[in-house]
């Protein structure tokens, strides 16, 4: 039972983290209709900034805040220099252009920080496990990640549902032309939204930094997961992204945790040992395929696309 609680927390933490990435992606996707493969590069840059700034300032929190601002800035620059020019183009042009950006960012990071990668140490008050229930210890840092991401999700909810910018974002996600027709400074809105997405990706990256290694290419695998979530949730839907992210987080974690045991009950030991890792690796792709076959526009489709 303690194992189950722990695995659920792991799934929750992983899912919420994926939500941060997917939320930025789905906003950019929904509003600018932009397929941004380079979203993972912003995640990587957030982590690199955090490791660098934390080393400079000697404070984890200060480093994180600076990194967040820096990633926001990088995102807005990327939007102004590159992305702005390819809105309205074919999705394939987006794939090509943002793939080019990935190559560029990877090598730029290698030139600046070297190929070896960095590490970010946790402050002592986050590195020890804490007791959450009698007999159940859990990583304090992972708990902190859960709290921060929940707060961000709440902030996004208020921003999108309760503010004027949020109204424009929602309007943009369901009908782009209309927002432009209303006389809103659409260029500025786009830059802000892209910057927000970048900052969210950067936040995800810097929060992963202490438990992963900060290294080149760290964003490339996780961005595919973020795309999977975006699509399962329905493009442009923040709520969909949250639900799908939690779904993927739980299925992936619990699948890895309990699926092999279930298989072992059904099959011979050898068959289970070879099948289980392969099957649990593809569980989330299976989930996506099933969702799309049943609901071709994702769980919560936001607009009229």
């Amino acid at each position, binding site marked *: 039972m303690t194992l189950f609680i722990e695995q659920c927390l792991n799934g929750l933490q992983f899912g919420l983290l994926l939500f941060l990435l997917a939320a930025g992606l789905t906003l950019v996707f929904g509003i600018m209709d932009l397929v941004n493969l380079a979203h993972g590069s912003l995640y990587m840059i957030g982590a690199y900034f955090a490791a660098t700034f934390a080393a400079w300032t000697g404070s984890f929190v200060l480093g994180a805040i600076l990194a967040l601002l820096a990633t926001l800035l990088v995102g807005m620059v990327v939007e102004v220099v590159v992305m702005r020019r390819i809105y309205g183009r074919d*999705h394939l*042009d987006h794939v090509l*252009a943002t793939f080019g950006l990935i*190559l560029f960012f990877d*090598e730029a990071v290698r030139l600046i920080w070297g190929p070896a990668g960095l590490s970010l140490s946790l402050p002592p008050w986050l590195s020890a496990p804490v007791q959450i229930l009698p007999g159940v210890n859990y990583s304090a840092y992972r708990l902190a990640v859960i709290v921060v991401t929940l707060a961000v999700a709440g902030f996004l909810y208020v921003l999108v549902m309760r503010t004027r910018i949020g109204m424009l974002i929602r309007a943009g996600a369901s009908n782009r032309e209309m927002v432009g027709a209303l006389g809103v400074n659409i260029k500025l809105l786009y830059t802000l939204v892209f910057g927000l997405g970048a900052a969210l990706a950067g936040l995800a990256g810097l929060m992963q930094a202490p438990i992963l290694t900060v290294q080149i290419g760290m964003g490339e695998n996780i961005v*595919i997961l973020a795309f999977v979530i975006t699509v399962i949730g329905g493009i442009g839907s923040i709520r969909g992204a949250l639900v799908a992210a939690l779904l993927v987080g739980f299925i992936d974690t619990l699948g890895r945790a309990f699926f092999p045991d279930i298989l072992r009950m059904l099959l011979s030991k050898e068959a289970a040992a070879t099948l289980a890792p392969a*099957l649990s690796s*593809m569980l989330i792709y299976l989930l996506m*395929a099933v969702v*799309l076959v049943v609901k071709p526009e994702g769980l919560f489709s936001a607009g009229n696309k």
Partner: protein
Amino acid sequence: MRPALNFRTIVTVVLIAALVLLPLYTGLSGNRFLLTLFTRIVIMALAAVSLNLMLGYGGMMSFGHAAYLGIGGYAVGILAHEGVLNGFVQWPVALAASALFALVIGALSLRTRGVYFIMITLAFAQMTYYTFAGLARYGGDDGLTIYKRSQFVAPIDLSNKTQFYYICLALLFGAIYLVWRLTNSRFGMAIQGARSNDIRMRAIGFPTYRYRLVCFVIAGTLCGLAGALLANQNDFVSPSIMYWTRSGDLIIMVVLGGMATPFGPVIGAVALLVLEEALSGITEYWQIILGPLLLLVVLFARGGIDGLLARADSKVRS
């Protein structure tokens, strides 16, 4: 509107001539590696041509096309591993397996549109990747070495580099011809019509789902052929050839060369792979050149290299 002597035609003709005459050059210069490199390029071009059929003409953005490279390749690899070396068995099996796979995947995926289609094809390709990576009997993710290439009747010998190159080249030209004939047929018109306006095509009585599915299956089968060739060329097949980044490479070749043009994908494949080889020879940091280059193509060369050539022509004419 006479067929003018323009850049586009010149480049295409020069490219074809260069591909045809290449073994002559490598034979004279004694550089056999160039032939190895270009055999690989020709095979990748074949895969890109197959992707172009569905992506360029059909508007179906598959992000999982590399899966067929793997299925075609593993059909050859697994049969060879089990002792079946006859190419007249191996290749039809490779084609049939790819076609069957494409039929199932296509039937499910074509229910979706746009980005959802991109992602569902990716999902199926990733599942295929993990399936083959889990096949311990056939090497798992270490891959499978193929000790003997596909055996055909007497004069045909795939181990002969020049012969194998010409076989690949002939199949590439055959595929280009097939795609060209298809796209200019009633079927091709319907596919292209469905790309620009699916609802209208359906309204005038075309069962577009079925047309798209057929297009999907043909593209998958052609790519399976490329996979069978690639396995023979590499003497090896591993799941890594169907990882999602490889599907991305194929898309890049098509977009870089020029979508929905008969020779665009070939130009794209040659450009990308030669560029990679050349840049990595110049500097270890070659990706910092290639990345922005791709970006520039998107920003300033709409329609890829082919589009660039076409525009150069219209500028000369005016």
